[in-house]
């Protein structure tokens, strides 16, 4: 039962969790992998394993990011992982360019970015987001809409610049 549940979570949430972890480190696969392994070994099964995975992945990614910063400068890491794109190469979105989207996401406030990523691609509820970022539901709702508005403005500016 637990194995099947973890397997389903791996299939359904793997990509979103990887994107979620990309905010803090350049090895998001490792962060997601460690989070899932922790879920396998967790003594008491969490009530909301999906929300638990997001929190665990965030902590793992932050730890990995700190370790990366200790090892090399940002420029060196970018040179080493030049193809570290956040989104896949399959262009399913004719409206938004994925590189522009990545750039716009990178310019968001870190807290706003994790709310947007977990809400849009992780499809988390506002209550789950409130637990994830340790604030009220209304605050999450307010910050989410502010971040979405900021993201839209950023993408429109980039589109206007390109045109």
């Amino acid at each position, binding site marked *: *039962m*637990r*194995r099947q549940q*973890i*397997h389903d979570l*791996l299939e359904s949430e*793997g*990509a*979103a*969790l*990887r*994107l979620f972890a990309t905010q803090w480190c350049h090895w998001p*696969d*490792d962060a*997601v*992998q460690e989070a*899932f*392994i922790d879920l*396998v*070994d967790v*003594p*008491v*099964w969490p009530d909301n394993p999906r929300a638990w995975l997001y929190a665990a992945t965030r902590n793992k990614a932050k730890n990995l990011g700190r370790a990366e910063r200790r090892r090399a400068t940002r420029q060196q890491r970018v040179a080493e992982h030049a193809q570290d*794109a*956040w*989104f*896949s190469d*399959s262009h*399913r*979105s004719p*409206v*938004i360019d*994925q590189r522009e*989207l990545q750039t716009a996401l990178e310019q968001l406030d870190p807290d706003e970015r994790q709310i947007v990523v977990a809400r*849009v*691609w992780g499809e988390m509820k506002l209550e789950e987001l409130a637990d994830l970022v340790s604030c009220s539901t209304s605050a999450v709702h307010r910050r989410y*809409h502010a971040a*979405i*508005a900021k*993201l*839209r403005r950023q993408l*429109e500016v980039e589109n206007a610049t390109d045109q």
Partner: protein
Amino acid sequence: MPPINEFENDLKRSTPRPLSDDARAAVEARLLDAESARPRGEPRAAPSHAALIGIWASGFAIGAAAMLILAPWLGSPPEPSTPSAPIAGPRVPERDFPIAAATEEPPSDRLIAVPVAREFGRRHAGDREVLTVGRYPSVLRNHRSIPPGRRGPPADHNEAAPRNTVPSPSGSAEQMTRRELMDELLDEA
């Protein structure tokens, strides 16, 4: 400007990169290891508070029942009819007593009070024990606990013959009293 829901849908069309195959394989391997270590698959749920209270109550009941069953054996022993050891002192072997008790009925003048076990340093004021003397008069005669005025051989109240006896003038072995001798002499005169 499109509505926010439409913009969210546009965002969702951007598919995040999938998790690497290595990470998936690592998680799968860890799952297999965990299942092999845990044959039943499902972990045991933590006991609820009600279960803990039940366990505690059953343990208490078992303990109470055990105490009730073992109560007759766990009670204090009955009070002895004789004083306890610190009051009466340690038992001393009979041979160490200066005077042993006699089973026969002793005469009253042989009843003396002797400090018991003086040799063992247990002299207590007034702690004397009345012992009867009848079987070992020699011990009584020479014992230092006996006042000097009362030492000596005890009177022999068991003598059958009268004390004032003289040999019979007829030369017989029969003993007679002085009164009997005077009566006999007067009769002959």
